[in-house]
Structures are given as C-alpha cells and as structure tokens.
C-alpha cells in the first residue's frame, strides 16, 4: 500500500488499542510502517466516536473496549471525504478498496 499512498501524497496514521510494545511486536510480525498510535485507553477512538457500543463492561471486563474497524480519508482541509466501516470486523480496507477511492476523490 505504500506505493499507492506515495503516489497520492497521503499520510497514513493508524490508531489501535495496542500498547507501544504491542505496536512494535506487530511491526516485527507484519512489517508495518508509518505512524502507529497507541490508544489503549480509547481516548482518540472516543474523540472520533468509534468505540464499539456493544462491548460493555460485562462482555469485556479487563479492557476499556475496542473500536469499530474504520478507515477515514481526510483532505488537506481536515474534512472527512470518505469513510469505510463495516459490521464484519474481518473485512478491512485493503489497497483494492482504497485505490479507486483515491483515484476518484484525490485525482
């Protein structure tokens, strides 16, 4: 996906509930690059309103919750111009889904 992002001059930021050490583990496992933010207290996730409301303290007593997997495309004015979220958490925005969106909205 890096060549695609470079082509359209897009900066990638990821936000997850991983801790800093878990982020580094993920980098080693999957060769991930880019700015990856550790949000294990869901501070950023709550600012965007993306916490999964179904995960209450009963279902997840040892964690503050999880986000709904979501991808946002933001233009240079800071406005969200595309949002990809799904009920199926296993389906995530992969390059095949993002590329046509970038070509359509940022060309």
């Amino acid at each position, binding site marked *: 996906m890096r060549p695609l*992002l470079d082509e*359209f*001059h*897009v*900066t*990638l*930021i*990821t*936000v*997850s*509930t*991983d801790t*800093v050490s*878990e*982020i580094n*583990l*993920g*980098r080693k*496992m*999957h060769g991930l690059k880019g*700015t*990856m*933010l*550790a*949000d294990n207290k869901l*501070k*950023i*996730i709550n*600012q*965007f*309103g*993306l916490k*999964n*409301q*179904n995960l209450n303290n009963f*279902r997840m007593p040892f964690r503050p919750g999880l*986000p*709904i*997997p*979501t*991808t*946002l*495309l*933001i*233009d*240079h*004015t*800071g*406005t*969200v111009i595309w*949002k990809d*979220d799904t*009920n*199926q*958490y*296993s*389906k*995530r*925005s992969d390059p095949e889904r*993002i590329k046509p969106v970038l070509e359509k909205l940022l060309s």
Partner: protein
Amino acid sequence: MIPDHLTSYIKPQPTLKNLYLLIIHNMCAENSCADVGGQLNLCEMNIGILALAIVLIPTGRWFWRAWKVDIPSSPYLFQMSWAAGLALGLLANQGGAESTAANWAISLALVLLYLSFTGAQKVSTSAIRVGDKIPHFEGIDGDGNSFSSDTLENKRIIIKFFRAHW
C-alpha cells in the same frame, strides 16, 4: 437393529429418554444392554469427551486464524459446531450421571454461541461522518514519542482504526 427387549422403550411413546437410550445402544457395544449401568456411564463419558472435542477444535481453529490476522468472515460453521457440541453435551448428561467433559462442553458452547450471536458492532450516534472536520487529537506513537494532529495540517491523511495486532 434394535433388540426386541428394547423396543418397548420406543413404542408406543417415543420420548427424549427413549431416543437417548436408542442412541446410546447404537453407539455402545452390542451387548451393553446386559450391563446397563456401567456401560451407559462409560458411553456417556465418551459422548461428553466427544462433545468437548467438537467445541474445542473449531474454537482453537478460530483463535489460530485470529492470530494469523485471517479471521473467518462467516461464523456459521463455527456456530454449528458449537451447537452440535452443546447438543451432545446435553445428551451425555441425560442419563443422570453427569460427565465433567460434557459439562465443560455445555458451558463453553453456551458462552461461545452467546458471544457469536451478540457480537455485532454498534456505532455511537456521535461517530464521525463524511463531511465532518476531524477533531484535534494527541497520542503516543510506536516509538513512545508524543504525537499531535497539528503535524497533519494541510496534508491528505488516511486514518485507520483497528482493534489490535491480534
């Protein structure tokens, strides 16, 4: 084939208990009828272990695929396996003598089925939408350094929110 002395259990009222005896008879040794108590308990234990295996194997498979970041898109086969394990576990305990393995199978299957059927994601009414400005945010990056969204000013950005590395 059902021995003649067992047919009375089946006719004229096929109840759950009679069905259970029929299944047990067919799953156990042919002459188990002669020693009903001991053989039935052994069969119930075996069924309980089978039930637990039917619950645990797909569960292990699910977590293995989650570890590989290849979570199955459809939970139906897993739900069917858990339901089958639940049914077998209940069947194993029908005879009166409870099997530890069957109890574990029943408990785990109930929890897994509950989680799988109620796991749909629910978004907040205040979730960010297309057309909204993103809020100012700050955090810690993977190197332990502070990060501020001010550094993203006038840039095109993709922000990906995901659960965790698992």
